[in-house]
């Protein structure tokens, strides 16, 4: 009995997952593709039309909630084409400054993230894992809050001038603490496009206060309020939601 149900349900869940991806062609000059609707919400119409165009499939994508400063997005990007694809950049309405980051282990054993020079090249049939503690898409300076339960648009730029947009669900997350670099925030250096390589050391900065949960930001769900880090003016730190 139960097995019958679950087999059916599994199918439905898979469909939903595929449908949750918006794979639309953006930033290219092909008029046909720009005209394509990119409805992310329709649960019954998996939209994978841009596969051929860009050759990429994104799965398991998500972004870490934050109400100011820096944060990151993750997921798996597969190259379904028979050519190598190089991702050279990423855009999001939530941050003017977005970077492709890698995490490297320094001589003293600490891991540090830095901009990935030359971008990420994915060989045909291979996939790129973006995950906490590893490669990721970095929001360098949020212009609005990423709140858990909302989705954020991201667009990957490829070397050949194509773009691929998708929505990433946002979740509260206690790891991926390399996203916060007090020195960068204090000096305000994030704003003015300095070199950010080597900005921040994994797990050195964030407070334990978060473990209590229930932060005090105006918007429930963004437990990464930097208030807990004891820096800056709380009122100033919580940006309005990106979805408003």
């Amino acid at each position: 009995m139960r097995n019958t149900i679950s087999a059916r349900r599994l199918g439905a869940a898979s469909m939903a997952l595929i449908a949750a991806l918006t794979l639309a062609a953006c930033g290219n000059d092909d008029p046909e593709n720009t005209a394509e609707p990119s409805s992310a919400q329709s649960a019954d119409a998996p939209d994978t039309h841009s596969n051929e165009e860009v050759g990429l499939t994104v799965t398991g994508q998500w972004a870490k909630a934050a109400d100011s400063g820096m944060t990151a997005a993750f997921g798996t990007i597969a190259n379904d084409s028979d050519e190598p694809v190089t991702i050279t950049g990423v855009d999001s309405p939530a941050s003017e400054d977005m970077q492709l980051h890698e995490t490297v282990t320094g001589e003293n054993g600490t891991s540090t993230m830095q901009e990935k020079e030359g971008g990420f090249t994915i060989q045909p049939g291979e996939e790129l894992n973006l995950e906490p503690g590893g490669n990721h898409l970095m929001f360098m300076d949020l212009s609005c809050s990423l709140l858990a339960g909302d989705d954020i648009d991201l667009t990957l730029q490829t070397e050949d001038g194509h773009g691929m947009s998708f929505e990433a669900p946002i979740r509260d997350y206690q790891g991926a603490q390399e996203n916060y670099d007090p020195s960068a925030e204090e000096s305000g250096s994030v704003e003015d496009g300095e070199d950010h390589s080597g900005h921040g050391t994994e797990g050195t900065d964030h407070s334990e206060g978060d473990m209590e949960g229930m932060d005090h930001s105006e918007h429930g769900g963004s437990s990464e309020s930097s208030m807990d880090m004891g820096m800056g003016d709380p009122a100033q730190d919580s940006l309005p939601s990106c979805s408003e």
Partner: protein
Amino acid sequence: MTADRKGPGSGRKNLLTRRNALIGGATATAGAAAAVGIDTVRRGGLPGGGGNPQVEDASSTAPLAEARVGFHGERQAGVVTPAPAYGNFIAVDLREDVGRADLRRMLKVLSADAADLAEGLPPIADQEPELTEIPANLTVTVGFGERVFDVVDPSAKPGWLKPLPAFEQIDRLREEYSDGDLLLQICSDDRMTLAHAQRLLLKGLRGFGTVRWVQEGFRNASGSLKEGTTMRNLFGQVDGTINPTTEDSSMDDVVYGLMDGLEPWAPGGTSLVIRRIHMNLDTWDEADAPGREDAVGRKLSNGAPLTGEREEDPADLSATTPLGFHVIADYAHIRRATATTPQERILRRPYNYDLPVSAAGGLAGKGADSGGVSESGLIFASYQADPVKQFLPIQRRLAELDMLNMWTVPIGSCVFAIPPGCSPGGFVGDFLFEG
């Protein structure tokens, strides 16, 4: 599967590898296990099995590894679903300042995570993705207290959604087991799975509220009761004989309000009353079998009514002894609980509890709601379309007269609306946001 979700560390890949490894191991050693005999396997372990108590026996067939109950549907799972061995009930108090948009986000996350967990997939950002591998019939059922309606859609709030009236004669309610704004009922046949699912879901709720209380319950282990056997409670009674069933229309009628005289608060929705009832096993020990059977009106051996032979025999409430007394006493639990109208029925799906005690000794006295060498009772979970029409009259009668009150004390009480289930694109309660 194209839709495999990769959590941090690409959990799913590891899961598949591990599962294959397990299956492989079982096949390789099955012959040996048969030859040596199960007893030997259990006692001594096998060469190759390693004899390591941390490693599963070669004879294990892992029947629960693939046992799933889907999350999506018109009704939420976890109500008419056969009750798994473990059931935890968690009430959450929502933050003072929580708004409509916040609750929408909260329910989206909760529903997405619950759906993944039910499928045995790691939800987004699950940091222990391997612990989702074995759903073991995991269900997550969400209930709404008044606050959810007040914030999201006051016009949809069912009239019955408020605390039950106090039952002065019997109640000794404690704050820490009563009320709440949001309910999670999480059930699974694997306590590991449940612990991880609970933590993951509560992590997702951190930004929206605080845990008010947790009630942890258990029933017989999966695989230990023969098919068709009714559970027993810690009094040793067969508990759950008279219940609506999905084999006829009674479940739909009673739980989902499809019968005349009842109305569902939303199609596919129902309600949950949880009464936490302490059972004083020390004073129960003082009662001998005839007294115990008399108190309920059923036999301890097989749950048959005192007027019958088998559990399924209907109780004859009019039968009398040669002396003219009712065979099923006037104060017997089943006489008092018997429905007096067709609507006045409930789905009972209780879990037992048995809390650890320390520095315990002696005997708990009559009327005590703790003490003795154990602290046990029932998480009495009752589902019905309308608690005021269906549950309340039964509880009123039992409060007035029920021999079981000699040994039982209600110490917690709450009422929640159970919203309908949701479709894969939606979330629990989404229909309340449409207006």
